[in-house]
């Protein structure tokens, strides 16, 4: 099909426009008087309508059209904004989103939208869903569409035209019509302008350039220009641009222009001598602004391109191979001890590490892509729960690897729902406790070291230690004797345990007791961690720590008999060499006294059933690792060193392997397994 080549672009852009719609709707809800926001939404909806109609998705175009009508009415202040208006608009956006997604999945983009359409129609007619006296429709302010006939010039433009004529230029007004089926109107406009700018100077266009670039015109627009070419030449040259239907060129009669054009409806050209200079400067400024606006738009579009994620993955895979080969080359050059080879390999190492930074950066996506769906969700949830919540997002531009981004959406949704359901109190309770009626949730993302932190902070009720403990005991997660020894933090972490739910009432928002342990598991499987801090009555903070990237990690390589294993540096505290006689026995567990702390020893040789070859040494090499605040010493035979490795999955076949999180390929081409310290310590 002919359309297929545009389909991907269409889907991507539709998603962007819809995102824009819902963001601006939220904004509008906060500032209902700011009608410029309505304009933004209107523009997004309008573009979407145009695109979907061109692509043949009638339902999508229809619904957008209805929504547009409502927006137009809002813009012209024919209807007042009610909460219900927003509900309906959000509903419409939801439906549109669903349709776009269905198209993306290869569907038809059809959906039953009768309800929404009806509601939209009601609103449009001013019969607000809750009967109100908003029926007064002022017809007078309705027609404000820019007129296509371009006959009005301000003083400044007339001066320019005058001067050009004095220098022997001809002034023309062109009316250019594009073909009805033209798909990329903005591109055609651009091409027309390019042609015109080659042969002369464009003075003015109607509608203005920005609107033309955003395709906010029907099929025709007009341009005023000065050139030395003849009428016929100009016409021919413009006609060469494909999909241009008709070009009409008129010579502008300056004498006629200078006499004030009969005032038609509004904005007369000012000729009064006193006001003239003022207007001129304003006009100049406007043209300047126009120029300025034009420039960045163009440079932006040339600086970014859309790349299929798959290609980035392939690039990453190829790069991983390169990293492996680099390790191998490095080893060979050391073995051969050739100066020139040394230097070459070193240079290559530097280049590849630069390349690594770039490749990894390319896969970085701002967390915004996850965060941007939250405001709408929180709004809806707040209405469902009859709570007032203000969601603030800080650091949405923080970047994370795409693989991590893909996974954190659901856990964050869980935590936000949890904060709204269990954290934020009802408005009346909040008032009674001397808090502002509106609860606050702060969603914050930031970089620190090799990690990205995401904080979800609410100013709600906080976590009640006693209730958590009682519940934990009741659910058999904890024994009563253990209670006294627990720190507050340990108590809070209990709510992440599976089978735990403190909500007295089970709601469909959260409180099924399955939510938070899923959060914990997902985050930990990404190599991150969740910690909770809370102050009763003042709120809670959930802190998620995530690694920047999952694919290349620093490890410590160790040897156990003849096998090599890699331990992620992120879980290592330090390494030590201990004497055999320092080992003590506590029950069945061998322990050592390490800086005054009793440290359990885990003999990896036994755990991994490594075949034995050599005899035992008098000294033991120990890698001290941690999980949370728990520590353990892993006994190995020797340390090889620290290196950067590419993490590879063992695949479905070996997913059951105990305490192995993956594998990596070493410089000599052999595979080393990566130890999962979290599984070893429990």
């Amino acid at each position, binding site marked *: 099909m002919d359309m297929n080549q545009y389909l991907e672009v269409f889907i991507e852009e539709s998603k962007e426009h819809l995102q824009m719609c819902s963001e601006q709707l939220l904004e509008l809800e906060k500032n209902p008087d700011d009608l410029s926001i309505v304009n933004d939404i209107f523009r997004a909806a309008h573009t979407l309508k145009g695109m979907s109609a061109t692509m043949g998705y009638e339902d999508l175009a229809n619904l957008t059209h209805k929504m547009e009508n409502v927006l137009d009415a809002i813009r012209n202040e024919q209807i007042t904004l009610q909460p219900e208006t927003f509900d309906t608009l959000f509903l419409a956006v939801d439906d549109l989103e669903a349709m776009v997604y269905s198209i993306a999945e290869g569907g038809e983009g059809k959906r039953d939208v009768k309800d929404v359409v009806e509601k939209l129609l009601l609103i449009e007619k001013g019969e607000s869903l809750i009967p109100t006296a908003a029926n007064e429709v002022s017809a007078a302010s309705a027609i404000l569409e820019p007129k296509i006939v371009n006959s009005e010039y301000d003083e400044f433009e007339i001066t320019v035209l005058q001067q050009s004529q004095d220098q022997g230029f001809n002034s023309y007004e062109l009316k250019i019509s594009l073909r009805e089926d033209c798909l990329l109107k903005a591109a055609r406009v651009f091409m027309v302008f390019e042609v015109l700018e080659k042969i002369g100077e464009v003075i003015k266009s109607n509608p203005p350039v920005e609107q033309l670039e955003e395709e906010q015109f029907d099929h025709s627009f007009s341009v005023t220009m000065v050139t030395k070419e003849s009428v016929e030449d100009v016409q021919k040259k413009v006609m060469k641009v494909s999909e241009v239907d008709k070009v009409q060129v008129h010579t502008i009669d300056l004498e006629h222009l200078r006499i004030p054009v009969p005032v038609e409806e509004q904005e007369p050209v000012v000729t009064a001598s006193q006001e003239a200079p003022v207007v001129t400067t304003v006009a100049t400024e406007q043209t300047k602004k126009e120029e300025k606006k034009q420039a960045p738009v163009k440079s932006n579009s040339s600086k970014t391109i859309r790349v299929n994620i798959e290609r980035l993955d392939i690039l990453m*895979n190829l790069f*991983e*191979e390169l990293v*492996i080969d680099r390790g191998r080359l490095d080893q060979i050059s050391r073995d051969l001890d050739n100066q020139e080879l040394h230097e070459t390999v070193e240079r290559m190492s530097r280049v590849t590490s630069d390349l690594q930074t770039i490749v990894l950066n390319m896969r970085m996506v701002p967390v915004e892509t996850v965060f941007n769906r939250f405001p709408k969700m929180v709004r809806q949830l707040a209405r469902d729960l009859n709570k007032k919540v203000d969601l603030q997002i800080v650091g949405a531009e923080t970047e994370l690897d795409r693989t991590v981004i893909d996974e954190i959406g659901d856990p964050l949704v869980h935590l936000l729902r949890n904060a709204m359901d269990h954290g934020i109190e009802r408005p009346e309770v909040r008032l009674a406790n001397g808090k502002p009626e509106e609860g606050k949730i702060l969603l914050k993302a930031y970089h620190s070291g090799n990690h990205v932190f995401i904080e979800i902070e609410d100013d709600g009720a906080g976590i009640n230690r006693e209730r958590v403990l009682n519940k934990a005991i009741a659910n058999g997660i904890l024994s009563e004797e253990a209670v006294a020894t627990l720190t507050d933090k340990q108590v809070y972490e209990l709510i992440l345990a599976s089978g735990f739910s403190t909500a007295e009432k089970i709601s469909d928002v959260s409180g099924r007791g399955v939510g938070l342990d899923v959060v914990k598991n997902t985050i930990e499987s990404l190599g991150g961690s969740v910690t909770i801090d809370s102050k009763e009555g003042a709120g809670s903070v959930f802190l998620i720590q995530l690694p920047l990237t999952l694919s290349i990690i620093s490890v410590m390589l160790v040897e156990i008999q003849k*096998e090599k294993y890699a331990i992620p540096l992120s879980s290592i505290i330090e390494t030590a060499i201990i004497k055999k006689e320092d080992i003590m026995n506590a029950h069945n567990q061998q322990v050592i006294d390490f800086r005054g702390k009793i440290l359990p020893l885990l003999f990896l040789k036994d*755990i*991994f*059933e*490594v075949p034995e070859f050599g005899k035992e040494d008098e000294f033991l090499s120990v890698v001290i690792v941690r999980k949370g605040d728990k520590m353990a010493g892993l006994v190995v035979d020797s340390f090889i060193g620290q290196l950067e490795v590419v993490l*590879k*999955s*063992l*695949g*479905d*076949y*070996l997913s*059951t*392997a*105990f305490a*192995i999180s993956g*594998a990596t*390929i070493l410089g000599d*081409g*052999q*595979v*080393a*397994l990566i130890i999962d310290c979290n599984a070893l310590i429990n």
Partner: protein
Amino acid sequence: MTAVSTEQEMKIIVFQIKDKEYALPVERVRGIEKLLHITRVPKTLPFIKGVINLRGVITPIIDLRIRFGFDEVVYNESTRIIIVVIEGMEVGLIVDSANDVMDIPVASIEPQPEVVGHRIDEYISGVAKIDKRLLILVNLEKTLSLDALQESMRKEG
């Protein structure tokens, strides 16, 4: 015999385990490798020997000898790893030797004889008698699929 061209043929890879000849359809085989360094993966099933680095891809290796219930032998010069595709994954099979690529008429394949008297019978999809050779066609799904593995994992505890 009718003309070869009218008869449906099937290309197979022939390999040997113990004294028997086995066969796999060629489209299931990605390549045949000499023995590479195998990294042992602890605490898995006995016939999973570990993983190898196959041109940058970590590939699990299964010893067909052990999978078929034969004794383990020390690998030698003729030991080969046949890389096959199952459920979209590449898996390596260790065999004693891989000696032949053959075209066999599809008609020559018969269901396995009733009495084989060995536990390997569940891994066989048929036998083909070509001249005086008896080729045993291996059923990869039964031998290697994850379900089958989990099954045997349960059996062995």
